[in-house]
């Protein structure tokens, strides 16, 4: 019975086309752009002219031409193809690194916000400590200890990334807790789990959803940054950050090796931020910026 349940969650709407029509321009552009990127990544083997590892020593360090749309790198690999295949990796890692911690982060935060008391104190204490530490520093530390690689990136991200979601969900839940429909649910005798999950949470996740788009961008930046430092994806796997690192030494002669992957990051990040902006408007959130 969801009578006293969802006063303000308008995520579930009636007709799809009417919904999409009401979107703001930034949301539309962002979604279109992201769709383009995701589709390109998915169909990379079809779109790319060359395999990502195909080396052609006759075409080393070539400028962008028709046959190599974004040029080639020091091993003669086509950069356009590598960017496309790199998209798969970056998007995948970004997605998992964002939404997996988001899930348990929101749950922990919602629990702390709803229950208050000792649970809340403990969670706040852990949050404070976790946030007193620069994110990247912690991850570098963990990675350097465990060794580089995608698996270990996931481990380190899962350890720390949940904190922001916990904070947001906790704050929102504390606001929702005081509202009448929550009291009504309590009076009706619903178990806590149900109250939080089905009544409170749908209304308390708006800011987390909006933040997740910025987080996605930050995670892509994080992954590429770690790969750039040599702590992330290992060569020869194509990944945007790793490609920028590879191009670093040829900055002067072949600037495109560095620039193109970076542009890919910027494009993806822009699409995600536009979506975040549009979502914020759509959900009626006070969007105070990216983070």
């Amino acid at each position: 019975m969801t009578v006293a349940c969802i006063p303000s969650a308008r995520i579930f709407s009636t007709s799809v086309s009417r919904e999409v029509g009401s979107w703001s321009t930034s949301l539309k552009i962002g979604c279109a752009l992201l769709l383009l990127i995701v589709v390109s990544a998915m169909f990379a083997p079809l779109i790319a002219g060359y395999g990502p590892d195909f080396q052609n020593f006759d075409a080393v360090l070539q400028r962008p031409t028709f046959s190599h749309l974004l040029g080639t790198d020091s091993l003669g690999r086509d950069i356009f193809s590598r960017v496309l295949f790199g998209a798969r990796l970056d998007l995948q890692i970004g997605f998992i690194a964002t939404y997996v911690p988001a899930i348990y982060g929101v749950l922990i935060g919602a629990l702390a916000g709803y229950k208050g008391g000792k649970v809340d104190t403990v969670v706040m204490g852990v949050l404070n400590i976790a946030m007193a530490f620069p994110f990247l520093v912690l991850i570098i530390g963990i990675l350097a200890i465990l060794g580089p690689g995608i698996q270990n990136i996931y481990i380190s991200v899962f350890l720390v990334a949940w904190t922001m979601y916990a904070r947001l969900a906790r704050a929102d839940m504390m606001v929702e807790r005081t509202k009448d429909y929550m009291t009504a649910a309590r009076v009706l005798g619903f178990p806590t789990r149900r109250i939080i999950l089905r009544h409170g949470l749908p209304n308390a996740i708006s800011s987390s959803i909006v933040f997740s788009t910025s987080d996605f961008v930050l995670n892509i930046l994080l992954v590429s940054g770690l790969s750039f430092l040599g702590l992330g994806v290992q060569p020869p796997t194509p990944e945007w950050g790793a490609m920028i690192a590879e191009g670093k030494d040829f900055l002067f002669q072949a600037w495109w090796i560095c620039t193109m992957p970076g542009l890919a990051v910027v494009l993806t990040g822009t699409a995600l931020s536009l979506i975040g902006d549009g979502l914020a408007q759509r959900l009626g959130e006070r969007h105070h910026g990216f983070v």
Partner: protein
Amino acid sequence: MLQRKVMIYLQYAIKRVLHSVPVILGVTLFVFFGIQCVPGDPIRIMTRGRITDAAVAGIYAHLGMNRPLPIQYFDFLRKAVAGNLGESIIQHAPVTMLIGEKFWPSIWLLGTGTLFSAILAIPLALLSAYYRDRLIDHAIRLVSIFGFAMPSFWVGLLLILSIGIYLGWLPISGFGDDFISHVRHLILPGLTISLFLAPILVQSLRSSMLDVLTADHVEVARAKGLSEWHILLRHVLPNALIPTITVLAVNISWLLSGAVIVEYVFSLPGLGSLLIHSVGYRDYPLIQGLSLVFAILVVAVNLLADLSYMLVDPRVRKSNP
């Protein structure tokens, strides 16, 4: 009168510092015991495994590292309070000295980055708020989004390429020897950081300013005959800075992270590069000392933010006698 003000600030500062101590302790605890759970140890890494177990045990006994962990931890704390953070296993030098050498470049970088960000962000946010929903506003927001999505290392490399190499105007690595040289070396790195931080500030400031613009006292100011720019600068901006300081303080973690990468790209001899080295070599005392310093930095920034609230908002001042 001035003395009383200083006293108020001091009392407030001390109160906040005391509150942060448990957090700092928590961090050191976490790092201390966390590192111990790790495979590989510094001696074997340094000697590439070409050392007997007996010799390793002997070295550790000499360094006092074979005692029970809690005792080692309290020993660490005891010495830390006295200012002694131990000695680096790899570099055979006091940790405090090693950190001290690399401390100032990092601080300079952070300061320069924040300064450039503020210089960029405030005018852009003002323009955005004044010309709200017009072309300039949309353009600024779009540029902000671009800036936010740009990886700092990529921006750094591009700046090195364009301004450093092609135009040859500014140095691209190192820190320099004297004040002027420091400044010249910090321009590009500072700019790199600001290209990441400024968008966050612009968005936050713009949002706060738009909030303030709907307040009653702004309408009253207009009814007084003040010009829109005067109102924006003197009545909206100061009020809007308050929540933005919060945003800045909350994001300090990201700022420090970004600084680490920028230090690497521009070969600045700062704490970031020290950290990367020490972690690679499992140099426990150094890692511990560094994490302590980082935690203190974050706390210090938050404290600064709190103090600046007192400066800007009189309501905070009066309620903290």
